[in-house]
């Protein structure tokens, strides 16, 4: 009786164990060969975005925006701080052609500190995602324009409204000819 029970228990354990192993192997193989492809474009796009989660695009952060771009909920040029070059790269990645027609007349902007108003609280410095603001406590702050990507977080953070976004004016080194004005013949009827 005792021995019989032992055999039955062993059989049950063996059967369950075997079943488990077999199914495990099948699942393992299936996971490897039959898996749905993970969309790694989200990762790739997130790597192209600035990564500071400024939320100007309307999504919580750059990862979420990247997912939205892949899903088609957001446009490839939805990232204002990323600028035209990032938009081009993202569009290339998801296979969309972004026309560059020179109609993007809005000038890029950068943050600028009104030094008369700055009280040296360092709140903007702590907020700045690219360390583009230099300064210390009770010392005037200033923005390094070449590494500011215009997320605007410092503007809302500043307690004295000392920071404004200023347009970057073209210089002799950056100016280029505009696109020739398209003279479209007016369609007859």
């Amino acid at each position, binding site marked *: 009786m005792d021995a019989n029970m032992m055999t039955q228990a062993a059989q049950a354990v063996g059967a369950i164990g075997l079943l488990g192993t077999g199914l495990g192997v099948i699942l393992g193989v299936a996971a490897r060969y039959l898996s749905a492809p993970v969309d790694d474009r989200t990762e790739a796009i997130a790597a192209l975005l*600035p*990564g500071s989660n400024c939320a100007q695009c309307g999504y919580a952060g750059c990862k979420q925006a990247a997912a939205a771009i892949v899903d088609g909920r957001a446009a490839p040029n939805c990232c204002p701080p990323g600028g035209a*070059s990032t938009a*081009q790269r993202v569009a290339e990645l998801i296979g969309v052609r972004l026309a*560059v027609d020179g109609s993007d007349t809005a000038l890029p902007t950068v943050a600028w500190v009104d030094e008369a108003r700055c009280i040296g609280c360092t709140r903007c410095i702590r907020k700045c995602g690219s360390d583009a603001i230099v300064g210390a406590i009770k010392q005037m702050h200033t923005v390094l324009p070449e590494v500011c990507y215009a997320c605007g977080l410092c503007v809302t953070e500043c307690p004295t409204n000392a920071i404004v976004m200023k347009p970057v004016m073209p210089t*002799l080194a*950056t*100016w280029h000819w*505009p*696109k020739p004005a398209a003279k479209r013949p007016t369609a007859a009827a």
Partner: protein
Amino acid sequence: MMLFQVRGGVKLSYRKELSSESPIVRMPTPKRVCIPLQQHVGSPAEPVVEVGQWVGKGQLIGRAGRGISANVHASISGTVIAVEDRVAPHPSGLTQLTVVIESDGADRWAELPQPITADFPLPATPKELNDRVAAAGIVGLGGAAFPSAVKLDMRYKYSIDTLVINGAECEPYITCDDRLMRESAAEIVDGVRIMAYALAVEHIIIAIEANKPKAVKAMREAAKADSSIRLVTVPTRFPMGSAQHLLLAVTGRETPADKRTAEVGAVVHNVATARAVSMAIRRGEPLVSRVVTVSGLGVREPANVEVPLGTSVEDLLTFCGGLHPVPTLLIGGGPMMGAPLPSVHAPVVKGSSGVLALTASETNEGPESPCIRCGKCVTACPAGLVPVEMAQLIRRGDLQGAKAIGSQDCIACGSCSFICPSHIPLAHYFSFANGKLSALDRDARQQDRIRSLVQARNERTAREAEIKKAAAAARKAAKAAAAKATAEPPTQLLEEST
């Protein structure tokens, strides 16, 4: 000498007769000059003078910046009255840092470096000559304004065996090089020999377009001084004066796309540059003036004028009798590759070969009509591109597509726009596209830099949080230990008391 076939190009009506028979005249010293600190390809020079300071003619006022750059010198003697942003001779109408000098009327030279007057072989090393050319602020006077010393330095990077001297002057109207070759052939040849010595080349070729027989004659006479100089007459066809095309025509060497002529073993310098080199070595004079052709039917007295750099276009036009019928277009440079001047207050700079005032009868700005697929632009393109297709891609915003078929190899000669029977501004499309593409490149580089900063910051904040956490844990542990330590003695005391 055998010439090689060059593809493309256009036949133009040259209208050089307006100024080709007027000898070079020296312009009297203007009351005031505005000398921009960037008159060359590369980084701007940095000002080394202060407002109120007296400067002599030829005194250094801007020291060459980092990388490719060139010195800038005072072109007259007088007082610096401002170092500020002034309008640049650039179609954008933007300003640039400019040194304004008010003349003292004396036109007195500053102290100049000791001239080297000895005959060939020169008692100076190529390096010394090169340093002198750099110090004199000499840039390519054909119009591109590339610092000449950098070109002479090429021998250390590439193996150079040929020096080509560009006397093609293929732009219509412009006659400054023609006159210079007729009047200062000996000085030019001297400069050529100095450059050849500095470059240590075996072959020297002076190439002149066939429509300048008098210049050819004068130069042939002067070139007898050196038997290694060969003088070549090249056919009159635009754009023969493009360095790559001229080199191809006289040596058969084709410069690869996006490369310099030095990579195929040759350096090309303009005739006016050769003269400037001679002046810098033989007299110690830096580049403070240049010959400018003032022409067009809108100018009362077309002329070739030796102008102190920084003279305003207004003063120059006044010197040439002023404007006659009101011109429709004021151009700096030649009509094909020059650009509209934003204002008559713009200064004459090192790269200004001409100032043209064109009337309506001389311009050909018909209304644009649809492309009729005649293919003339394809035949005319000297860079072997397909302008019609590139323009179409650019029009619909596909700059990458245009780049893929070579839009960045466009040399902006304007032959396609000139030949187009539908008046399509083809070259303008390519200027826009190439400008936009390089703007995008710049933007991409900046974004990469910002992204790496963001990443560094994220890593740093994570590390700081980690350290804080560890510190907090350590504090907690210490507190607990201290609490235990303070909690235990009383029990001991208690035990002892009991």
